[in-house]
């Protein structure tokens, strides 16, 4: 059981969602985050003030999956989020100690497997 964290470009969010859906990865959360990963920094000008935006907007996916779903999830994140330019994001896979579905009290494998799967 792993927690797959994917940080991607906001404009690729829909593509990632579609790829995950195709890979039959159903349970996920997303959040809007800001970060920096070495990409060029966009410059914006407001009246006379020119500012360099050191943090870019990103979307973070948190996906808890059973072991057999780890690779399909990673593949889906890569295929959906890749543009080939610096700033495409990162994927982190971390071990997951426990998972509990609140509604039923199901644990671990049962909790990360979508209902009906």
């Amino acid at each position: 059981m792993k927690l797959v964290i994917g940080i991607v470009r906001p404009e690729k969010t829909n593509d990632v969602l579609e790829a995950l859906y195709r890979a039959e990865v159903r349970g996920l959360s997303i959040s809007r985050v800001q970060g920096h990963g070495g990409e060029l920094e966009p410059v914006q000008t407001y009246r006379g003030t020119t500012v360099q935006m050191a943090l870019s907007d990103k979307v973070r996916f948190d996906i808890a999956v059973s072991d057999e779903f780890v690779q399909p999830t990673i593949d889906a994140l890569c295929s959906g989020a890749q543009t080939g330019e610096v700033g495409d994001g990162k994927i982190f896979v971390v071990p997951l100690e426990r998972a509990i579905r609140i509604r039923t009290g199901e644990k671990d494998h049962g909790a990360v497997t979508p209902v009906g799967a």
Partner: protein
Amino acid sequence: MPETINTGDTAWTLMAAALVMFMTIGLGVFYAGLVRAKNSLNTFMMCVAALAVVTVSWALIGYSLAFGDGSGFVGNFDYVALKDVGFEPYGEQTVPHVVFFAFQATFCILTAALVSGAVVERMRFLPYLGFIALWSILVYPIMAHWVFGGGFLAENGTLDFAGGVPVEMGSGFTALAAALVVGRRMDYGRRAHLLPHSTPLVLLGAGILWFGWFGFNGGSGIGTNQNGVLAFVNTLLTPAVCLLTWFALDLIRGRKVTAVGAATAIIVGCVGITPAGGFVSPGWAMALGVIVAIPSYLLIVWRPRTRVDETLDVLAAHGISGFVGILFIGFVAQADWNGISDGLLYGESALLGDQALAALVAPLYAFGATFVLLKLMSLAFRLRVTEHEEAIGLDVTQHGEEAYVTGEGAILIEPGEADHRGQEVVAGATA
């Protein structure tokens, strides 16, 4: 001032021009709320740009093509660059000519801004500026000449109080042509139909438009005459009834009254009464509120199921409602109220034919001329942003600004560094 000038008429026309000018900003608020956050500034700027571009084109040539004597089809060059547009009134009017010019300018500005609704979220900003500049010379003034400047429809007897022909059918059918030439958004049909990022902005914008419409319709009598004040009152009645009708249609269709629907209804009602305002009784104006709602509602429900990405439904809200309003006059105009002619229900059948002619030629010209104009422009310029820029959003890629800046991580660049960093604007936007 010349002796024929009436100060009351002049005061009201000045005020009305200011009201209509503010409608363009209201339209910007309305449109900005209707699009995704990443495109909201660009969408608003398309309306602001009309204030810049069209005011100049109108002063230089547009006004002359619309109101110069000329032929039945188009005016002439008598008033180019406002030559001879002074204090002596235009025609039989009682306000200074220069005031009438300014009042009419605000109409052309608003109409050009309306068209932007068809191409938001994908059209490049500079080609858009070129398009509205040419459109405000080649399309709008000609249609305005037909009904306001002594052109063939006016000669024929067609009644159009405040611009059902040039403004409403003009913008609506232009929008359809523009949407077809520019093409649909890349994610249209799969993910993006209408994704309003701020519904309160949509309602605020619609409210500003309704407020401004009192000047638009109420001012179109060019004074506080009977037709003008009648149009003012009808501008309260028709949209209110249209709003109520829309509530009912929403309830029938989805069991809930929607806010975006309400904002749309206000505009549809205002558009419907635009051509008819000074010619129909208040009672018929209220009836028009019911009649005008239905075709627009049906088109708004049906259009997103087609492949035509006329994004903000300018055709449904303006083109079709203007069409209905123009024909409506032919049925219920009353000489008792308008002092000019009766419609079919009051014993005169000729007027309906004149109205039908306007309802036929206006859509044909607006659509055809715009289609050709944009097709020619597309040979010389790329009209659309790239798919990548479309994904990032037009605010950042076209203007280098965002509507909702968080401010975290912003580093001030000293003026000396700006040129060097400026290169990264492009790189950063495409990275």
